[in-house]
């Protein structure tokens, strides 16, 4: 077994994800099977391989340069807050996190 019930619980906690008992067991079994399959990567010796951290090659990256850091109008606060679940302009309101 690659992944235990405790592993799934720990990961769900890291991801702030509520899972039901049924989901826990279903995902554990399915992910176990997926990890078992992923284990085939160990057939490859990658000791001398650099991980691919960028898709664009160096010359293409030079293309994708950062834009200039210009000040531009950005009056979107109203639009953005209009779609928040609990807005208190100019803030987003959340449940209390600090005890007084």
């Amino acid at each position, binding site marked *: 077994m690659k*992944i235990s019930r405790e*592993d*799934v619980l*720990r*990961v*769900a906690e*890291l*991801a*702030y*994800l*509520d*899972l*039901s008992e049924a*989901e826990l067991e279903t*995902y554990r079994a*399915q*992910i176990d*099977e*997926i*990890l078992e*399959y*992923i284990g*085939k*990567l*160990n*057939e*490859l010796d*990658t000791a001398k*391989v*650099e*991980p*691919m*951290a960028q*898709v*664009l*090659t160096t010359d*293409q990256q030079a*293309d*994708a*340069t*950062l*834009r200039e850091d210009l000040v531009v109008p950005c009056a*979107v606060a109203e*639009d*953005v807050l*209009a*779609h*928040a*679940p*609990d807005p208190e302009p100019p803030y*987003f309101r*959340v*449940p*209390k*996190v600090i005890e007084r």
Partner: protein
Amino acid sequence: MATNWTIDAVREALAAKKISARELAADFYKRIEARNPELNAFLALTPERARRQADRIDALVAAGSPLPPLAGVPVAIKDVISTRGTKTTCGSKILENYTPPYDATAVERLEAAGAVILGKTNCDEFAMGSSNENSAYGPVKNPLAPDRVPGGSSGGSAAVVAAGLAVASLGTDTGGSIRQPGSFCGIPAMMGSYGRVSRYGLIAFASSLDRIGPFATQVKDVAAILRTIAGRDANDSTSTTAPVPDYLAELAKPLKRLRVGIPKDYFGEGMDADVRQKIEAGIALFKKLGCELVDIRMPHTDYAIAAYYIIATAEASSNLARYDGVRYGLRVEDDSLLAMYRKTRGKGFGPEVKRRIVLGTYVLSAGYYDAYYLKGQKVRALIAQDFRDAFTKVDAILTPTSPVPPFKLGERTSDPLQMYLADIYTVTGSLAGVPGISVPCGKIGGKLPVGLQIFGPAFGEARVLQLAHAFEQAGGAEV
């Protein structure tokens, strides 16, 4: 009135005043009304936006002004791509009421070129799936065979074009989500190189893989849409300044004697016998067109699925951390902030998305990062090297798009690994960052479409399109 509109046909009809852009849009809405209840391919329609744009085009026609390249062309947009003022749900309950305050760059460019946006198309939740059955709003039916899936994740975008409910559409491709539904719905569908099209306004799934690209009924129209949306955008630092060739002009050029690679590694076990027969007939047609067929090896192909599902889920677990019930989307109330996060995410995300968040968080977590994520990134480098090596020998690579024809709804939903394994021919190009197109390559029993995939080197879209166009013109869809 014509039923199979193309970009050129729309343009000619408008210029000759045979129809107005407004009438054309109204005609498409009538078709949608008749067909969408069965197909479930559109999630939202934008008739007011379409009418405003159509009126602008009709004013140009009335004034005798030059028409922009996509004037009056009715198009549809996958619901993971932001549209100002129109709900963009990503096929998820967590964004059921989300209305973006801005347009994606690709949408803006389509409209600037004259296209008329009809609405938003159904898809697998957050583009995670290969059958469109992971949408929180129900599956899309394949218009060619309503008991079958349209493919995924851009199943709605493929289905609306195949059913004649839009002339073209935008989808997104992370591991095959444009090419595979294109194949399943019998239409050409293209993913440009990584960096070719701006992703500004695309709601992220896996940022090192996600790309936006077109569906249309003919390769020429795919080329026209790609040309419109491609090119540098200051709002996406991964979009490159590499010049965008005039793909349409490239299509018109005669096909030179090209070397096309047939990778043995894509023709092993697991391919449906009928698919194999069609693909072999398709390859024979390329030979007839004067291409030189070259046997090549891409030795790491068999490891692509494993590497892909590590990298894609890892990036997804990070990208989807933003859905926390604070700034937009669903919130499930609780007195505690952390419990509010957990409940919101537990209720808002569907099963496939949760499964991928758990897997992705696991492969990135302390103690497993090296064994999984780092290993995946190293194998990704080997797969990219396979492509670079191949393109020193050949101009393009031919493969099947999918090992199986469109399957029946519900047939594969209980086994996620089996569903993942069917992405084998498309994820390789996604990992490598190269462009790929799926073109229709016959129908099994005259009914179920097969797609042939053409890969080119990074930023070699013109060659890929030229080959696809020549194949289509030579009757590829009927092999």
